[in-house]
């Protein structure tokens, strides 16, 4: 029996009476990858936010590392998310007043763990933006910014990495590169990787797939 790092059962959510979503069950094992494919409007971002514990489902359950987190009180939920989930959003966003290094350290700070500068430097080198650490984030190219987002998501050694449309705005070449990066890095820290996207190019990259 595979240990499921993250799984969702009977998830339902609605924004209004017109906008209701019922999601298929999701299962991703420890150190495995999962692709969730769907057209626009099918609730991809909603599902990602539910899995990231940013939204509370109307019904159904979410399990992370064996804990029924969807029932936790909201303070606990925040802590679970901070320590165990790394999120990579579709467009890179940062605290513009701070440097790249400080931005990467933020997840440590807000999760109340020691700020690991060495790890930040290591990840920066691995991801190819080592010499930009003291710059402001808006001085980097979009590709570099995206890699900074990836580094940021990895800082707390999360158990689950959720990526929202990581390749949608990239050309084929960079699409390949980014997916490789994500896979390598999550394998290195032993995290489960879940990618939510409408980019059909990724169909061949993942064995586990779910369609919305």
């Amino acid at each position: 029996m595979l240990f499921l790092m993250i799984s969702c059962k009977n998830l339902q959510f609605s924004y209004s009476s017109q906008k209701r979503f019922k999601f298929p069950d999701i299962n991703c094992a420890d150190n495995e990858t999962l692709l969730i494919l769907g057209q626009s409007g099918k609730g991809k971002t909603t599902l990602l936010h539910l899995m990231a514990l940013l939204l509370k489902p109307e019904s159904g359950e979410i399990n992370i590392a064996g804990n029924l987190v969807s029932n936790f009180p909201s303070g606990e939920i925040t802590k679970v998310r901070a320590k165990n989930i790394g999120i990579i959003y579709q467009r890179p966003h940062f605290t513009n007043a701070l440097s790249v290094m400080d931005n990467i350290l933020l997840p440590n700070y807000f999760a109340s763990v020691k700020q690991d500068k060495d790890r930040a430097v290591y990840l920066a080198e691995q991801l190819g933006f080592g010499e930009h650490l003291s710059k402001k984030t808006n001085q980097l190219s979009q590709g570099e910014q995206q890699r900074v987002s990836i580094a940021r998501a990895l800082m707390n050694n999360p158990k689950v990495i959720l990526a929202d449309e990581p390749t949608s705005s990239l050309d084929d070449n960079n699409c390949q590169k980014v997916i490789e990066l994500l896979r390598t890095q999550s394998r290195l820290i032993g995290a489960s990787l879940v990618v939510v996207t409408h980019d059909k190019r990724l169909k061949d990259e993942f064995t586990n797939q779910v369609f919305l």
Partner: protein
Amino acid sequence: MNLFKISIANLKEKKLNSFLSALLLTLGIGMISLLLLLNKQLDEQFRRNIRGIDMVVGAKGSPLQLILSSIYQIDAPTGNIPLSEVNGLKRNPFVKNVIPLSMGDNYHGFRIVGTSAKYPEHFQAKVGLGKLFQESMEVTLGSKAAAESGLKMGDTFESAHGLDAGGDKHGDKKYKVTGIFDATGSVIDQLILTSLSSVWDIHEHAEEHVPAGTEEEHAGEHHEEEKQVTSALIQFRSPMGMLTLPRQINENTSMQAALPSIEINRLFSLLGVGIETLRSLAIIIITIAGVSVFISLYNSLKERKYEMALMLSMGATRTRLFFMLLFEGLMLAVIGYVAGIALSRLGLYAFSKSAEQDFHYSLKEFGLLPEEIYLFAAAIGIGLLAAALPSLGIYKLNISRTLAEE
């Protein structure tokens, strides 16, 4: 990396906004602080010099002018009064002390005042160097007059007529410095004191040199019965004097009697209108400063909505972020306060320079007043209030929706 660092980084990022808010606060606080400083110093200086003097008599005219010229040595005297009438006051049962003053000449802008030993005695002036004037034409210098005129013990000098340095010189008779007073913190410091007879001698001498053909028959006479002085400072034996004496003098003699405390209060109430206006202006400026802080933070928050949502998703609590935002407003308030206090000291310095030049009064105390501590509390209060209002928005932020918006 901590919340303080983030706050300060945000203030630096929005340099122009932060600058404007801080500038407005600086201006408002600077104005109020300057008013407080000036008020205190003027009050002190004015009150210090009228202590112990119950009434001033002099030539008829404006009572305020009489007080200003005779007690503060500002403004011109109202005229002269006969010595005989002044001496008459000495016999009045209500009068304890009469200090006659004779003014009209100066040396390099420092007034030469003919008087009796009672005048320096009243201000508890001690002669630091040499001795008090005794013979005619001997002078004792006030500490500031000595320091700035360059006169030393034993020097002789000519006085100039009038109260400005540019008057005609009385070339014939020279004064001699026989003593210098220690600093008293009162009007004595800026005066040159001599005996009453010196002033009469100088002006008689001037009369003797009137060219032939004009009033020859008066040349050489001493007009003893018509000896005049400028004014006299009076101390009462009992407060009852205030009830009857001034009216008696005003109605029955050629002199007028002015009561210092009444005239000074009137002066302050006239000044008060000006001060009230400035104070209202300062309060308006500070209010606008508060509004500026509010607007600055409000806009900043709108722009940073995604950042806030991001930090919340990373584990920041809303209260923590609320305090971070409050801290930004607080920083602006502190910067504004410190700069305002510094600015007011600069203003006081400039004021003081011109007061020195014109009136020989120094307004030099730069220490922190207790009222300025309250001002600090007010500045902090304004900063916090202006920052709290937009920052409360953090509690209404929908994380998921904000992060989903691109």
